[in-house]
């Protein structure tokens, strides 16, 4: 079971109910739960505008990885629509290094439900879906119980909170194992009972989404922030972070640190401090080698590149991404050749096969790196890997192609010498994968 952690530098907004039994609806209400949504309803005709203005003022940006401003996303939905509008909450958390939604669903499921309602009221939707990855069955059970409890209280269904004519329903949904379904258009396909392959955009989901209706799709953490933002006010939330990067976020720090865990830190917090102070430094007092700062798809940072603030803009300036907030820490024992292979092995397995540059690119990078790893490689393999990755970039319908190419480019560019030495028989680190480990499995 996820072990909760704590550090004095944390600013607990989203996580303030963690560890307090807030899965119980009465406890959640006692801790200011379902207050924000009632405040919104009390705005009467100004409700939608009030919510969207508050969200815009908060500077909240999407916590799934892309960092799109949430208030702006909500404002893109047309006011009137012939087809029903929907809210779709993405809890298909699958980016390696990321386990923050896991903790939210386990500790504070009602915040996701309340956030879904708020998003629905903002765009005029009467139905929301909360989609959890299939592996999260125990969390789905928790969320389903929470939804049932909210119905029993009259918070969901017809005439919510006793307000005549105001209806909102929530349906929970399980996936069945597919990283690609975390991509918003593939998520809609999956929820419509199809293979999780991406849709061509435009039209964007805010105009033509689920079942053809205008749809907003937000990560579970993004949605869970909404009630807190309405309660504290947009500017107060924004002030916790940095310019254009409002608030706090959950950072999952994993790998070679003394105290791995999910910590809530202000946007812009130092990556170095997050590793050395919050997470207690490198495990066993070893030296830091590299950091994958925002889930497996983010380009790696070398040990000398970690004096950077954890917000979307500063990370972009440092040549990487804040991504999903999953910080993976690598010590000096790691072989970058092996780590690069393990990373591409994942993306090759998860490529849905729809776009040829991604399907073939991930496969050939994996094959080439496998040959290098198993000591049959040549120097030009490194160039070939780089060439393949560069030619995947921007050439696919969804970001999975980029997600596979970007870290690959980071590894071979920043650690090229280590790849060359490996081919020359001088191995760094202590690799663990062997031919016994499904290295050349079929994938897809």
């Amino acid at each position, binding site marked *: 079971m996820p072990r909760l952690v704590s550090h004095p530098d944390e600013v607990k907004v989203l996580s303030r109910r963690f560890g307090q039994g807030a899965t119980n609806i009465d406890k959640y209400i006692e801790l200011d739960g379902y207050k924000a949504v009632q405040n919104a309803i009390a705005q009467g005709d100004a409700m939608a505008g009030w919510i969207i203005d508050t969200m815009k003022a908060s500077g909240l940006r999407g916590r799934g990885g892309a960092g799109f401003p949430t208030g702006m996303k909500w404002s893109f939905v047309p006011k009137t629509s012939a087809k029903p509008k929907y809210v779709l909450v993405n809890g298909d958390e699958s980016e*390696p290094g990321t386990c923050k939604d896991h903790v939210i669903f386990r500790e504070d499921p009602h915040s996701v439900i309340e956030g879904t309602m708020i998003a629905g009221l903002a765009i005029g939707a009467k139905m929301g879906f909360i989609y959890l990855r299939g*592996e999260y069955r125990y969390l789905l059970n928790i969320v389903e119980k929470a939804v049932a409890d909210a119905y029993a209280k009259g918070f969901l269904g017809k005439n919510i909170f006793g307000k005549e004519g105001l209806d909102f329903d929530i349906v929970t949904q399980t996936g069945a*194992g597919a990283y690609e379904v975390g991509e918003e258009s593939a998520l809609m396909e999956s929820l419509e*009972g199809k293979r999780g392959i991406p849709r061509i955009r435009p039209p964007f989901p805010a105009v033509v989404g689920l079942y053809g209706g205008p749809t907003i799709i937000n990560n579970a953490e993004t949605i869970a922030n909404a009630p807190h933002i309405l309660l504290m006010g947009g500017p107060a939330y924004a002030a916790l972070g940095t310019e254009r990067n409002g608030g706090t976020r959950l950072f999952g720090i994993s790998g070679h640190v003394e105290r791995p865990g999910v910590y809530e830190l202000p946007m812009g917090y130092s990556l170095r401090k997050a590793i050395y102070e919050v997470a207690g430094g490198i495990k066993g007092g070893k030296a830091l080698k590299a950091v994958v700062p925002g889930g497996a798809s983010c380009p790696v940072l070398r040990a000398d590149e970690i004096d950077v603030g954890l917000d979307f803009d500063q990370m972009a300036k440092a040549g990487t991404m804040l991504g999903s907030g999953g910080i993976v820490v690598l010590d000096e024992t790691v072989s970058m050749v092996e780590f690069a292979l*393990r*990373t591409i092995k994942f993306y090759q397995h998860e490529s849905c096969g729809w776009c040829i540059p991604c399907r073939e690119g991930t496969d050939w990078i994996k094959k080439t790196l496998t040959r290098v790893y198993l000591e049959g490689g040549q120097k030009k393999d490194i160039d070939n890997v780089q060439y393949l990755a560069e030619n995947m970039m921007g050439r696919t319908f969804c970001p999975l192609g980029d997600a596979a190419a970007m870290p690959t480019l980071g590894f071979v560019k920043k650690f090229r010498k280590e790849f060359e030495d490996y081919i020359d028989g001088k191995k760094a680190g202590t690799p663990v994968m062997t031919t016994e480990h499904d290295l050349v499995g079929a994938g897809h």
Partner: protein
Amino acid sequence: MSTIANSIFSPELAARFDKLVTIYPLKRSALIPMLLYAQDEVGYVSEAVIQEIAQRLDIFDLDVRSVLSYYSMLRTKPAGKFNVQVCTNISCMLRGGYEILDHCKKKLGVGHKQTTPDGQFSLEEVECIGACCWAPAMQVNYDFHDELTPAKVDEILDGYAAGKDGK
């Protein structure tokens, strides 16, 4: 009461499916949950499961097969009563995920996607299961087990073998 005569599912699951097809704007949205819940009960997605789900959703068998082949948790052959899924993705790898996988292989005497002769355990190397901060981690059926060591794995697997409920 099932809307399908001679349902292959238990009365409880049949009733659940009757309701599930009514809660979405389009009933085909029930397909993926139905496949997974059917697998939970039957053990795998059999031909009969495919036929009945297609019938319940008014879609072709082929539509069901197309979706079935896409999702990694769905299987068309039985697994062990306890399906042991060891994560070896990056965060788990850094904290000994491969050691845990090797230990499971040795202890159970089976490899990736194989089942013990008595049908009790099957083993799978899986991609990230969302337990990165508590690595290394594995799932046995839907139960999460984390911060694993070989000794802890022994204790967990022995517990299942001694009759802990697999569902």
